[in-house]
């Protein structure tokens, strides 16, 4: 996908990289320039160190800030039963003590320089983001390199973060009816693939992690050849690349394990499950098996989701919320995962209405999408909404860095955000009927009802 920038600019970068490689930098610090990727009207430049670290730089002078992201190609898909939640727990530990920084100093140094920092973990990836005044970006370079190579993992830190993560799980899952429902939905829809367990992990697994578990995970996955650094902002590209070389060049690459993922077998029968919890209203969740993010069907199915669920003028919002007043909210989402995921449909029923009333109406809408052609106006409406959403992702340096890092990590294409919009634009009415017929099939779906009750059933989903 990489396209060369103008020949002269690319050659100049290569020549500079060659010059920078001279001297005592070691093999790991050798800089290569690998070309550029279009990112709208701008270019993302791809550099690589000898130790395998990928560096993507987008110079953006719209504000005096810089976003510095580190994306690791590791998520909950790389865990195994009994050790679920390790990728996420580890994300917490990365903010702890290193060989050269006492506990808390990482955050304090960033805060002292006006930076914001946080991290996120999901099924396919983990990323760390620092947002700094542009003239402080080299601080992030130093600190991120330090924790990539010198993290300290002791029982006290692991024990403390286990408790924090257990509390995070209580907040996001145990006491949140939608979090609990989402967990049960994936557990039911997937039988073999690791997408079946939650990224935050099962509570028993969280409470059982040891420093050895964490140290093994660190050695295996937190290697420069498993990471992508993304820098977006008002930065001097070559100065930054040199600073990264100096900070990361001595970190050795690691042999990465060959991924050992069980593909999810085709689903041949509808699955139904109920969850009874104290709740104000019933929720109905439908999940069809969907395409991987890189699949050609992903964009058309996303457009179809918008036709059906996106905004107040969507078919199901009009039908269920406005006309029939059976629901307060409807949502559709095609999972943006590396492997085939789900097309999730969420309906929040109004008090005294139930999923039993709503399900036939959903079936009718899905049936229409399979049989009738969507009108060109509805298609155009959906595309406009998706284009607006895509542009909103690009308003800040942090937003751009997230788009670049996400699509590089999942698809190997940092400029895919724009190609995705082009794919939305190319989508035809025929494409929508095709994906409706291919994916909206009863046998490949999971139906989950959350039924309100005021009893005292134990919280949590059984493993």
């Amino acid at each position, binding site marked *: 996908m990489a396209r060369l920038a103008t020949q002269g600019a690319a050659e100049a970068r290569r020549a500079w990289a060659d010059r920078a490689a001279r001297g005592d930098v070691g093999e790991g610090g050798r800089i290569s320039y690998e070309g550029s990727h279009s990112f709208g009207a701008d270019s993302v430049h791809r550099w690589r160190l000898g130790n395998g670290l990928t560096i993507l730089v987008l110079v953006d002078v*719209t*504000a*005096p*800030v810089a976003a510095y992201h580190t994306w690791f190609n590791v998520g909950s898909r790389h865990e195994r039963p009994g050790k679920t939640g390790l990728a996420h727990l580890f994300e917490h530990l990365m903010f702890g003590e290193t060989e050269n920084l006492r*506990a*808390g100093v990482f*955050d*304090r140094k960033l*805060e*002292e320089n*006006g*930076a*914001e920092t946080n991290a996120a973990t999901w099924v396919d990836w983990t990323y760390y983001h620092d*947002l700094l*005044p*542009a003239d402080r970006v080299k601080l992030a370079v130093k600190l991120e390199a330090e924790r990539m190579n010198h993290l300290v993992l002791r029982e006290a830190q692991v*024990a*403390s973060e286990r*408790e*924090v*993560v257990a*509390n*995070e799980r*209580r*907040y996001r899952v*145990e*006491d949140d*009816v*939608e979090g609990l429902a989402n967990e049960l939905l994936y557990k039911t829809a997937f039988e073999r693939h690791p997408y079946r367990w939650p990224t935050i992990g099962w509570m028993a697994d969280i409470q059982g992690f040891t420093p050895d578990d964490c140290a093994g995970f660190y050695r295996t996955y937190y290697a420069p050849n498993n990471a992508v650094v993304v820098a977006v902002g008002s930065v001097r590209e070559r100065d930054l690349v040199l600073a990264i070389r100096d900070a990361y060049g001595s970190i050795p690459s690691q042999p990465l394990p060959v991924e050992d993922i069980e593909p999810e077998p085709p689903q041949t029968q509808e699955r139904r499950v109920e969850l009874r*919890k*104290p709740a*104000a*209203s019933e929720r109905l969740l439908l999940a069809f098996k969907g395409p991987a993010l890189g699949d050609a069907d992903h964009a058309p199915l996303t457009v179809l989701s918008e036709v059906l669920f*996106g905004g*107040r*003028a969507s078919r199901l919002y*009009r039908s269920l*919320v*406005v006309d029939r*007043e059976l629901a*307060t909210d409807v949502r559709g989402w095609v999972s943006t995962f590396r492997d085939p995921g789900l097309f999730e449909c969420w309906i*929040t029923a*109004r*008090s005294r209405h139930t999923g039993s009333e709503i399900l036939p109406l959903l079936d009718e809408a899905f049936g229409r999408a399979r049989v009738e052609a969507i009108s060109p*106006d509805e298609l155009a*409406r*959906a595309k*406009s*909404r998706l*284009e*607006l959403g895509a*542009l*909103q992702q690009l*308003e*800040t340096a942090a937003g751009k860095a997230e788009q670049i890092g996400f699509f590089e990590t999942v698809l190997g294409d940092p400029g895919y955000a724009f190609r995705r919009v082009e794919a939305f634009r190319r989508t035809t009415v025929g494409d929508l009927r095709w994906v409706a017929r291919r994916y909206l099939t009863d046998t490949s779906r999971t139906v989950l009802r959350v039924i309100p009750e*005021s009893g*005292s*059933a134990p*919280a*949590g989903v059984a493993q």
Partner: protein
Amino acid sequence: MSPRASAPATRLGLDGATVVLVEPSHDVPLVSIVVSLRNGAAAEPPEKAGLARIAMRMLRRGCEGLGSEQVDFMIDALGAEMSVDTSTSTVAIHCQVIARSVAAFVDLLGRMLESPTFADAELERLKRESIAEIVEARDNDRVVAQKAMQRTLFEGHPYGRSAGGTTQTVAAITRDDVVAFYHRHVVRANLVLGFAGDVTPEAARALALRLVSGLSAGEPTADATAEPTMGTGRRLVLVDKPERTQTQMLIGTLGTSPHDDDHVPLVVANAIFGGTFTSRLMKEIRSKRGWSYGASSRASIDRHRQAWVLWTFPAAQDAAPCLKLSIELIDRWVSSGVSAAEVKFIVRYLVRSHAFDVDTAAKRLHQSLDVELLGLPEDYFSSWVSRVRAVTPAAASAAVRNRIHAMDLLAVVVGTASQVLEPLRALSGLAEVTVQPFDAE
């Protein structure tokens, strides 16, 4: 720092006294538009709480020549979005649109503003929808805690009412109420318009004229809100909700006014106490004890003195010790103040992180809107960095001592009473403990 970072938005005046604020930026082909009123929910009768929000939400439920469905479809087809945000002091319609459609979208919005139909059937539908949303929000423990804090801390004051109303007050709203509210407040003299993004001041002026062309001149709405007062003593409200594994805990008291001499010192002191990831609260509650995923404190600003609130969410078994520790930390903060090292650190943080308060045109516009709508001092944002730099440890400590009344605290805990009530009640120093159901309004 960018020279534009501290500069207020371009200010235009239209006939009829509408103020227009413009913050151009051509980096992304998007235009943000804000149509705001100089009054909010404080102007509605208490028994009709939710009226301002309902009146503004009715705009997209139909205007002359266009039904609700057509309006919704056109907004989407233009690549636009539109939402209503209501607070005690202001009401705002927030819109964002792809730049190529801005003229068409503003024409549509202008039609909505000048000729809303307020159809009875649509109003009744919206009321039912709003009531369903109020009921559904009870599933969110944090929202339940915030509402309990608001209505108890500011009991009898407009700040104590939910801008969304209650199931009873929304049900009581009539078409006459909506029409009267709309025609009284949606007038040129009471509007402040904002444009940010891919638009020039000249284009914004033309768009603003289109938006107000069908509105009457009117008068600005005067703010009749009294200064809030605080109850006395340390009180606990337990909001009882079944099957909670965790609690949502808020501790509040009166906080700051943007017009206080010690406003900025208090903001600085609060940042030390609970405003960052390495604050005192996070260190003690999360880092040392692992009791909660988060712990923070916030000193909100409004036209009048608003609340200072601490928020954390410990597991049920940790609720009592966490509340005890939180109150001890407040006591220590008030009695001992903050140190010179803490002030030096946090001032650096606040000054340097200011870049992120102004890194988009929309953020810069909202600062200018806040100055206009909340009656903030004109230089509130433009002099922010220098005022933060000037804060001394003595000033920050004095601000905490003078403004945070540690003996007049209200704690709100959402949790399961059978698990947490007795341990909480056993804590010393609580003058009053009351239990409310989670669906109380």
